[in-house]
């Protein structure tokens, strides 16, 4: 397979997932598209350094996350507040609470969660990755990743149940 075709196939395979990850991190469509493009640009230049073809997906997500963190630092708006949820506060969330929220509401609530906790939570929900793979992508210990996901998930569910959900448009 030619290098061009290989690159094209790789884009087709992962650009959607990377875009959604970028959108969940930034909350902005343009920023998400830029991050996705930048990730593949870096891949075109440095991807050949990757020895293990099976870890392409992890490499792409790691790169997008790194680029996102760089952007945050440049813009000096890096939120480093922690999520104070305690595991003792496990919420009893109604099963249908997520059904009533649209994707925009979900993205808005995700955007309110501190970045350190948001990235693992998004990977937990959107990608079929093991906890070990999520930890590798974010370069964090496994225990830290699981603890952050748990705390962020509690916060997400709590905010979902507290949020004024969109009014039914058919009314």
């Amino acid at each position, binding site marked *: 397979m030619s290098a061009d075709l290989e*690159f094209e196939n790789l884009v*087709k395979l992962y650009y959607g997932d990377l875009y959604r990850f970028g959108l969940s991190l930034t909350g902005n469509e343009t920023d998400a598209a830029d991050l*996705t493009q930048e990730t*593949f640009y870096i891949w*075109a230049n440095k991807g050949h350094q990757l020895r293990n073809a099976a870890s392409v997906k992890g490499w792409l997500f790691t790169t997008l996350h790194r680029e996102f963190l760089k952007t945050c630092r440049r813009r000096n708006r890096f939120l480093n507040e922690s999520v104070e949820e305690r595991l003792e506060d496990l919420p009893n969330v109604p099963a249908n609470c997520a059904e009533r929220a649209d994707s925009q509401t979900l993205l808005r609530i995700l955007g309110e969660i501190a970045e350190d906790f948001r990235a693992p939570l998004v990977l937990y929900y959107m990608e079929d990755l093991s906890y070990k793979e999520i930890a590798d992508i974010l370069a964090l210990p496994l225990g830290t990743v699981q603890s952050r996901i748990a705390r962020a998930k509690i916060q997400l569910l709590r905010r979902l149940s507290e949020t004024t959900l969109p009014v039914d448009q058919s009314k």
Partner: protein
Amino acid sequence: MNTREAKEILLLYRGPIDDSDPQFRAALDYAKSDPELGQWLREQTKCYDTIRAKLRGIEPQPGLSEKIVRRRAIPFPHDWLHVGQLAAAILISASVTALLMKWSERRHSVAGAQEVVVTGEVLDMTCYIASNLSGPDHAECAKVCIRSGEPAGIKARDGKVYLLTGEPGHSVNAELAEYAAQVVTIKGRQTVRDGFVQLQVEQIRKL
């Protein structure tokens, strides 16, 4: 294990994807014997599925994949034979340059430029540096910019970017505009000052 401990573990359980993960095994077994916990688990996995489906249902901007493919960077060739040849060429070139510089110093010559041949994409430097625009998708804009006198450059296969100029007082923008966003080989004289690499064009050849 009690219900609270099982709940703490199962809060992270996503369904079949986690079935092979041993950390959930004991808690899942416990949930089978506790109807209330079992109901909580069903609700939380249903909630997980709903959130996942909604987030994964978000569609990327139309045309994004085509844009990424069109704006692909020129990849650096990475076969080891080529890298070896390149390294040898650089070594020879550096040795020759060093010898020439010593010779030139002795002769009090003012010539500081080095003859080089560079293959790469012709860039409109204004859009490239400011907005990272290059490739066929940006060819028309690059052509207009270069023709109207904006600085032109060439991005070599190793990622190095050269500013392209003509001889002092003689612009080569009209010729370069014809090759905007195309891959060409340029022979010229390279000079470096304060980190900027300039290539004074002597000959352009389309690949």
